[in-house]
């Protein structure tokens, strides 16, 4: 007996010990990123680390329309006599207790831009803000700043790790420790898509949509309701979820863009297909493209100084250089403004030698002598024969990240715009036998064709559930028949006889599912031309009546004759 007891205590102790060594939370990479060759994978990893940080050191990029938290304000008046004080206005105005001494002030514009100070005191009555150290130069009127930046994101992150992470994963990839036991699977945020929104078909979800889902949960799934959380806690969680979505989508787009050529399979194939006998040459050719190089590579002929080299370009690019030089010469002759000397806005990337991987901005190149000048000294100095290629910094990967993140920011900003909100233009037709009969007619019609997926009885067993589908952007088919969503999970058309609607059961919710689609799934959007409001309300009335039909199913489906209102009202009255 005692032995058993000792064992169980030992076990308890062991569990305690094992359990307490908390694993460091980290953002898992997507499958696409993992499948890239090392330099391409590093490009994605670096971009993510720079722009989003790690779970413990978040980077809040203000480009994204995410409420990171903090109090924004502007300087009302600079204080000429006191270098540690300014009179400020907060927008929105601050409540008395909201600002504590010790909070950080970060300057967003003016002479102090980028600097931070610590608050010594703040008087809400006068708007007089005092910081702990003198500011030199002192900020001028109109300069903007933020106090306590990142509070919301920080608390969102903590709440997320407590309440959401177990299913949705640290990176919001829908692959938390519990995820594999759940069906339907938890949402993977990394496509930026959420199924149930109030916005038009191509648009993202609004903050209100996400908040509603967190608050109410999703009936029929494992997503519970979080009604017990305070409103500011919900706001913080939503901010963090949106931030994770932006991070994930950035990763997805970068990886998708690269994987066409730089996935492990594609790279091997390419290197093999290059006709070079030297594998280094083949690798060089392929790697140049990773850097979107302009395609000139060469070797060091002689070292002429700390920032000067004599080089020779590899022979196959010689004619291209001549051509470019001719173009430039022609432009000068024609009296046009010549651009900076050729190669002057480019970068040199070393691929062999001591500086392998380092980059150097070029300031000038003399095509006649082959002399290349750099802005800074080369450290360590290259040796003769070291190989390099010229990288067009104007066209670098950086620009790609800028463009991609701008797009993502735009998508989320647009979703909040009132113009994309899906609102009925006519009020709902009251549910009547007549309206339900019309709705049923539409449900079965060729024009609306709900039957194709939801089946003639609305049981979610239409012919599409029997067909084999291809995976998106691949020629491979799914191993089992039926519809699949964009996340690759099987998605069943809703069984409408159950009366359980995941996106909400208000008539407006059903209206929006039909009008604006269920995003990422096979449920398409019916725009106002395809299905005018009046028809749509009839359809909604019918769908809402399905669970209450006395007889499950309907009479012969293939009839194209409209069902008389009478027969339906009789059925209803007999209930």
């Amino acid at each position: 007996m005692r032995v058993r007891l000792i064992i169980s205590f030992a076990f308890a102790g062991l569990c305690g010990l094992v359990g307490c060594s908390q694993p460091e939370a980290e953002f898992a990479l997507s499958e696409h990123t993992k499948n890239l060759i090392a330099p391409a994978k590093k490009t994605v990893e670096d971009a993510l680390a720079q722009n989003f940080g790690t779970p413990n050191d978040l980077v809040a990029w203000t480009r994204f329309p995410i409420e990171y938290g903090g109090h924004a304000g502007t300087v009302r008046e600079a204080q000429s006599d006191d270098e540690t004080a300014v009179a400020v206005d907060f927008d929105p105005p601050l409540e008395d207790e909201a600002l504590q001494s010790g909070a950080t002030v970060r300057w967003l514009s003016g002479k102090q831009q980028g600097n931070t100070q610590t608050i010594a005191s703040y008087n809400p009555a006068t708007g007089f803000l005092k910081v702990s150290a003198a500011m030199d130069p002192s900020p001028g009127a109109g300069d903007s700043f933020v106090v306590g930046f990142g509070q919301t994101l920080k608390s969102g992150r903590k709440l997320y790790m407590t309440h959401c992470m177990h299913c949705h994963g640290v990176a919001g990839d829908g692959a938390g420790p519990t995820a594999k036991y759940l069906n339907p699977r938890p949402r993977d945020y990394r496509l930026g898509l959420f199924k149930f929104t109030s916005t038009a078909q191509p648009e993202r979800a609004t903050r209100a949509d996400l908040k509603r889902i967190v608050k109410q949960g999703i009936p029929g799934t494992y997503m519970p309701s979080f009604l017990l959380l305070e409103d500011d806690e919900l706001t913080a969680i939503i901010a963090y979820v949106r931030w994770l979505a932006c991070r994930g989508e950035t990763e997805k787009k970068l990886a998708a863009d690269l994987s066409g050529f730089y996935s492990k399979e594609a790279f091997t194939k390419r290197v093999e297909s290059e006709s070079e006998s030297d594998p280094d040459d083949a690798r060089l050719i392929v790697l140049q493209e990773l850097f979107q190089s302009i395609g000139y590579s060469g070797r060091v002929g002689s070292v002429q100084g700390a920032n000067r080299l004599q080089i020779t370009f590899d022979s196959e690019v010689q004619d291209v250089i001549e051509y470019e030089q001719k173009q430039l010469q022609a432009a000068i002759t024609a009296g046009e403004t010549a651009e900076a000397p050729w190669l002057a806005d480019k970068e040199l990337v070393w691929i062999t030698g001591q500086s392998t991987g380092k980059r150097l901005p070029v300031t000038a190149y003399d095509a006649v002598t082959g002399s290349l000048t750099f802005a800074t000294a080369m450290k360590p100095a290259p040796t003769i024969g070291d190989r390099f290629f010229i990288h067009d910094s104007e066209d670098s990967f950086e620009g790609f990240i800028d463009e991609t993140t701008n797009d993502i920011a735009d998508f989320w900003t647009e979703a909040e715009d009132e113009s994309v909100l899906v609102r009925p233009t006519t009020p709902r037709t009251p549910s009547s036998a007549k309206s339900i009969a019309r709705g049923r007619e539409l449900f079965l019609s060729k024009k609306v064709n709900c039957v194709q997926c939801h089946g003639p009885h609305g049981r979610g067993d239409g012919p599409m559930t029997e067909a084999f589908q291809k995976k998106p952007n691949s020629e491979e088919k799914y191993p089992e028949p039926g519809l699949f969503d964009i996340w690759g999970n099987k998605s069943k058309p809703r069984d409408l006889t159950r009366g359980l609607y995941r996106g909400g059961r208000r008539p407006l919710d059903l209206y929006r599912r039909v009008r604006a689609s269920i995003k990422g799934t096979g449920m398409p959007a019916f725009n106002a031309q395809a299905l005018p409001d009046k028809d749509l309300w009839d359809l909604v009335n019918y769908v809402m009546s399905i669970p209450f039909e006395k007889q499950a199913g309907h009479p012969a489906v293939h009839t194209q004759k409209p069902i008389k209102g009478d027969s339906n009202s009789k059925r209803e009255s007999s209930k």
Partner: protein
Amino acid sequence: MRTTVLGFIALIAVTVAFVIGCGGGVSSDVSVAFKPSSLEEIPIIIPGKKKILATGATGTLRGRIVFDGNRITLAPIVTTDKIKDTERNVCKAASIPNETLVVEKGGDGIANVFVYLAKAPKKFKLPEVDSAPVSFDNKNCRFEPHAVFVRNGQPLNITNSDTIAHNTHTYPVRNRGISEVINFDLEAETNLGLTVVYNKSEKMPFRVKCDFHTWMEGYQLTLDHPFAAVTKADGSFEIKGLPVGKHNLVIWQERAGYIDDKYPVTIEEGDDNNIKVEVGPAKFAWFNGPEPKTILISSTTSLQNTTSGGE
């Protein structure tokens, strides 16, 4: 009895240890770093840089993509008897062709191949965007044309010529995808279309599907420049107004993927630029998953084998 109580305590201890211990980094300190929105806030000025935008001399590129090997005719995906009764009159008496590889009848040209420049030529002033819409129709339960190029900013008119609902579901990478039902008005017999304008350059063509009809498949490509073409039924294409000089063409076909991602061409002024690209059948080989396993249960030998394997 005492042991039971103690054991119970031990159990609680285990549970508590788990609950407390497995916070998963919840309690660790979190920092939030500030990153300004864009480069505008930290201006980077590159002095003395001025681009030469010239219209310059241009040439027209013509070419053909041909099939180099024994002719392949693919069987129709859906034959008439497989189409549902209610749709037979719409989805045509004719069967649905397999358009993943279309070789010219009585010739060797490959249709529906995308030929394009991956990027707009540098230092070249692009012509204005053509405001004439490009048509993309749902007709006889297939997309017409099957493959289409549309420039960014140019309207793409998606229409439906059938009297049943079609849904046009696109899968672009950079642009926002649509999934909209393209309908028709039975009474007025008008075609209620949808106009889409893409504004981002894609790297390669993307698939278009109809969620109502599994077999329906089309491809669209959108770029920020006009230098792209889709081969016609005879495998020929034409790209007008290419700036004189060297270019790398991307040649892409839905079944083969990249036939070439940097096919070099040198454009000279005028119309006399012709290429011919031959593609062997190996490119069109298609991975359809692993070979299905065959288990013979009618044969005594294999039954015995199965049993012995199981033990």
